[in-house]
């Protein structure tokens, strides 16, 4: 199946940008191409999405204001939260090939719609980054431990989709799901003892092991092993951990990432450089994958702006603010400039192993628990049927 934009006449530059195979190539040509692709993308949505057209009107934005990469911040941004409350599309229902809901921890589930190009393009980006890192290996069978939801029929949860997709990069010997599906009524349950048992078995088998999914559940597994006083497991050193999806309602248990990696290395015997985290979301699917020093690398198909939490003005490198992802890859939904609910710092310079731009996540942009005694949106355990519909 060839991957192509919905309309190559209108989106030729978009297709060109997203076809750059080297994820971390940065040239001034790329910047120019990026601007051209953004203009095409903006026009595309403007003509197909009533909401987006009105938004540009309200913000008095036209693509003429976009003359160089330094003008990117002028493009109206949309909060990721907005997509959680509103169904917005730039394509017809027939063109929607995938409809994902984010596994949101609180509040409504996010609704995102993908056409073939959008999802295919994003997956190709993942593949190219894995290729760049040398993680694609079809020679040897591997054992999988997925800290993700065991698929149920008709599941629309995005993470399950992604993690299964990652299994194609190395041949499957066995797959074990940590979040067992217990049936329609009971939902999913985390099987920590099953995970430990499986890891023990994988250790004996000696094949490389690939562990994907939510970090919180891997953390619980390691913790349980320690609590039980179990000896460390020595997995094949070619094993690989690739996490993503955040701490999923276990934010209060989140620990420092580097401490966590140290524990995984100690308890499972997988070397630090083969422990990687990925940052992405349903609202913005470009993969931001950690480099060797656990920096989230920004690939050439996207740009990142950090914005002040009060004024929303762009901030310089090294400053903390909203994480604003900008990319023209998406044709199904006008999510070309998405403001994430995370606080981050951008770095343009490289570190010793990497020359390109990267960012680090500082925390959630928002309050988990109010200090006051007033009820806060973030603390309602059960969704309520009120307010905006």
């Amino acid at each position, binding site marked *: 199946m060839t991957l192509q934009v919905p309309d190559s006449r209108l989106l030729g530059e978009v297709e060109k940008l997203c076809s750059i195979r080297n994820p971390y190539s940065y040239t001034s040509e790329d910047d120019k191409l990026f601007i051209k692709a953004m203009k095409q993308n903006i026009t595309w949505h403007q003509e197909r999405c*009533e*909401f987006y057209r*009105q*938004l540009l009107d*309200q913000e008095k934005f036209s693509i003429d204001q976009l003359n160089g990469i330094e003008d990117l911040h002028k493009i109206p941004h*949309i*909060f990721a*939260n*907005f997509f959680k*409350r*509103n169904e917005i599309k730039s394509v017809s229902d027939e063109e929607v090939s995938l409809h994902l809901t984010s596994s949101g921890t609180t509040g409504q589930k996010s609704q995102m719609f993908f056409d073939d190009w959008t999802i295919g393009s994003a997956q190709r980006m993942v593949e190219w980054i894995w290729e760049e890192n040398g993680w694609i290996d079809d020679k040897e069978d591997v054992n999988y431990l997925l800290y993700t939801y065991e698929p149920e029929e008709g599941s629309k949860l995005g993470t399950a989709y992604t993690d299964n997709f990652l299994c194609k990069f190395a041949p499957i010997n066995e797959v074990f799901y940590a979040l067992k599906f217990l049936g329609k009524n009971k939902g999913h349950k985390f099987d920590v003892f099953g995970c430990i048992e499986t890891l023990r078995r994988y250790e004996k088998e000696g094949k490389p092991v690939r562990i994907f999914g939510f970090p919180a559940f891997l953390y619980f597994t390691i913790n349980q092993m320690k609590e039980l006083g179990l000896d460390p497991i020595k997995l094949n050193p070619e094993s690989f951990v690739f996490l993503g999806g955040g701490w999923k309602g276990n934010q209060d248990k989140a620990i420092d990432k580097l401490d966590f990696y140290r524990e995984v290395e100690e308890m499972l015997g997988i070397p630090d450089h083969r422990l990687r985290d990925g940052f992405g979301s349903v609202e913005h699917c470009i993969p931001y994958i950690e480099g060797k020093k656990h920096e989230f690398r920004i690939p050439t198909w996207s740009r990142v702006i950090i914005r002040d*939490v*009060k*004024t*929303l003005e762009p901030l310089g490198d090294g400053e*903390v603010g*909203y994480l604003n992802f900008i990319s023209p890859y998406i044709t199904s939904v006008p999510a070309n400039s998405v*403001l994430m*609910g995370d*606080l981050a710092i951008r770095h343009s310079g490289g570190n010793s192993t990497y020359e390109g731009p990267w960012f680090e996540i500082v*925390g*959630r*942009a*928002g*309050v988990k*628990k*109010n*200090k*006051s*005694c*007033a*009820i*806060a*949106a*973030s*603390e*309602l*355990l059960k969704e*309520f*049927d*009120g*307010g*905006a*519909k």
Partner: protein
Amino acid sequence: MKHLWFGEILEGVELDSRLESIYSEASKALEVELKLDYLLDVLDRFANDVEKGCEKLSSLLTGEFSDEEKEEILSEIAKFCKKDHLVRKIKRELGTEDLNDLSRVDFDRNIFETWAPLGVLTHVTPGNSPGLSFLAIIEGLLAGNVNILKLSSRDSDFTIEALKELYKYDRNQVIQKKVAVLRISSKEKDKLARLMSVASGVSAWGGEEAIAGLRELALPTTRFIPWGHKISFGLVSKESLNDTDKLKELAEDCVFMEQQACSSPQSVLVEVDSFDELVKFTENFSKLVDEASSKVPFPELSIQEQAEITNTVEVIRLESVNQEKKVFQAEDKSWRLLVENTSGLGLSPLFRTVWIKPFSRKNLVQELLPLRGYLQTCGLVAKRDELGELASKLTSAGILRITPPGEMLGSYDGEPHDGVYALSRFMNRVRAEIKGLEDVWRLSSLSDSKDEKPQGEIMGKADFQSQTPDESKAKLFFRSGGSSGEPALSPFSYEDYHTQMQAAAEGLLAAGLEPASDRVMNLFFGGGLYGGFPSFFTILEKLKVVHFPMAAHEDLGFVGNMITKNNVNVLMGMPSYLVQLFKANENLFKSNKTVKKVFFGGEHFSEKQREWLISEFGVEAIRSASYGSVDAGPLGFQCLHTTGSVHHLNHNLHTLEVLKLETDEEAAPGETGRLVFTSKKRDSIKINRYDVGDLGRLIEEPCACGRKIPTFELLGRHGDIFRAGGTFFNYNRFSKILIDKTGFDGESQLIISQIDGKDRLELRIDEKFIHDPVNEELFLKEYMDLHECVIDEKCLDFAVVPVDGGQFLRTPGSGKLKRVVDQR
């Protein structure tokens, strides 16, 4: 890491072993007796000192508290712990201050009820609220519980140190044995579960998640008392859309304290018909919010707090593109109003962020349903004729507080907390059916319970009268004798008055009044500020007995007629009036013997007169209606088994001491001394070790009625006792012999003199009132001590001298008779 373990300080790990034996530790603590009177006294002393400033506690409030906040926390604590406040709180929340004392609920049935402690009460309070944690324990103590407070490891030592300060006042070391403060993290589920295993109640503060976690750990039998987070809002009626004055107040609520209180408005619901109207309202309201906001400096927000605001605002701004929404926001982003044309409440990121949403009067209950469990305060802006309808809609919708705009954060003393009275949640309501105690009001009178010895100087009449009553409380005044001879007034609060009348009513019940069947005529003297008639009116009202409020009416014939016509079987009044009444209606009452019981007060009722009523008119019982004084209220009552002037103490009102005549030492058991009372319940004025001027002795022998409260015999007035010929005599004995044995009803006086070194005692009596002959023989026969001294020891000469009334020696001011005159 320090823990406070029932009076001990534990370091860190020591706690683990104690938790192992939590059952025995808890049962020990449950056994400790902590009386409410004592607790209130200790707290009051503590509060008075904290109010004066407590450096130590203030210094413990470190970190995030400003000096102003520190002062406020301490002043809140002091205010809360004052006895006055606590008594009011207890009465308000529980309807009585007599806790853990099974008492009758009415006179018809043998039903007793009371408030009793839950047992072990575990408190989990939110972090960073040092005052709250301390006060939570105090509330738990008031309810009589053993209290275990879970502090988080992040909490400061404030609560522990404040308790240690309080323990300095705990002279009997009992409060500390009822309190443990433990530092346990919410993650230490095992330890928490251990704590919960002995808890009869869990008082849990905090957010949803914290409360849900605790609820999971509590036993199914444990009473779970959540104090969760709440939501509040303003509500503006159609008629008030332009009521700028009130909206200005509401705008101030929106700014005050950065909306951090649960009673701060997060939304303003507006009665409009269209989005345009809503926007128009918001335009006007935004000016008022801007004005209010400009008066208060905007605080430094954390990046998360700021982001929370921006998250909310930006999504609404995006939605406003094609939905009926709009954001109004200050240029400097110091405040923002989020207009949304959908009903229901919005959850605000706070810091001057308010949702403006429509409501419909018709559907208000339904519109508030989604957050019903969280509803707390509504600042209501409406016109007079709308208030009734809206308030009733709001209460049906589940609102817990309705306030005027501008006062959403206010509170008043004794208000219910989030829909309930806390103390009632911390206690059980116990019911009992007990037969055979028809004359007993409260079961505590049947059990042996010693009061703590009162402290302080002895108060005399002058000390009492020199007090300045609390003006806000003293509302009722009765005439009392003045020490200088001038008439004086004794002040009462209505609380005091009713507490006292209740006690007197209980006394009458003990004395044989049967409310279910008796028909009573109140013949006490009223008017001229005298307390007799109105007091007994209240007493009889409390007893819910058939009552004819006649007062000491002059038309004795009319009174007699009314008595027989209405089958009155109980008379209450002064003996002198009652005797006159019987004399005036002698024939009527002899032929129509309806009166069976007589309860008297104010004077001595002579045995001779009693005999007359019983033998001639068929009266079956004559007892004291109450022993008391205007100043101190009811002090004692009689039961079916007490005779003469023997009384039981009104124990739930007073503590009684009998002190020696010449020193303030306690009199020996049975020895005659001064009766000194300390009131446990008196708020407008203080009665502490008040020497009422009466003499008496404690009776050690148990009373046949089974009451184990103090019993005493009244033996006349102070000053009536004197020493002559080496022996103590009591004027009262002479007077009693005169009245009882001869029917003498005039004045009498004792003159002590010395002739040739020998004491001489002369009893002068008003010759006009002599009925039966009065001579020395009579007294020598009736008064043993006198016989010994005069006849056996020959140390004293004794004579009875009838005189003209004008010859009595009187006090210069009031002209009152001097009963004993010492001329030696």
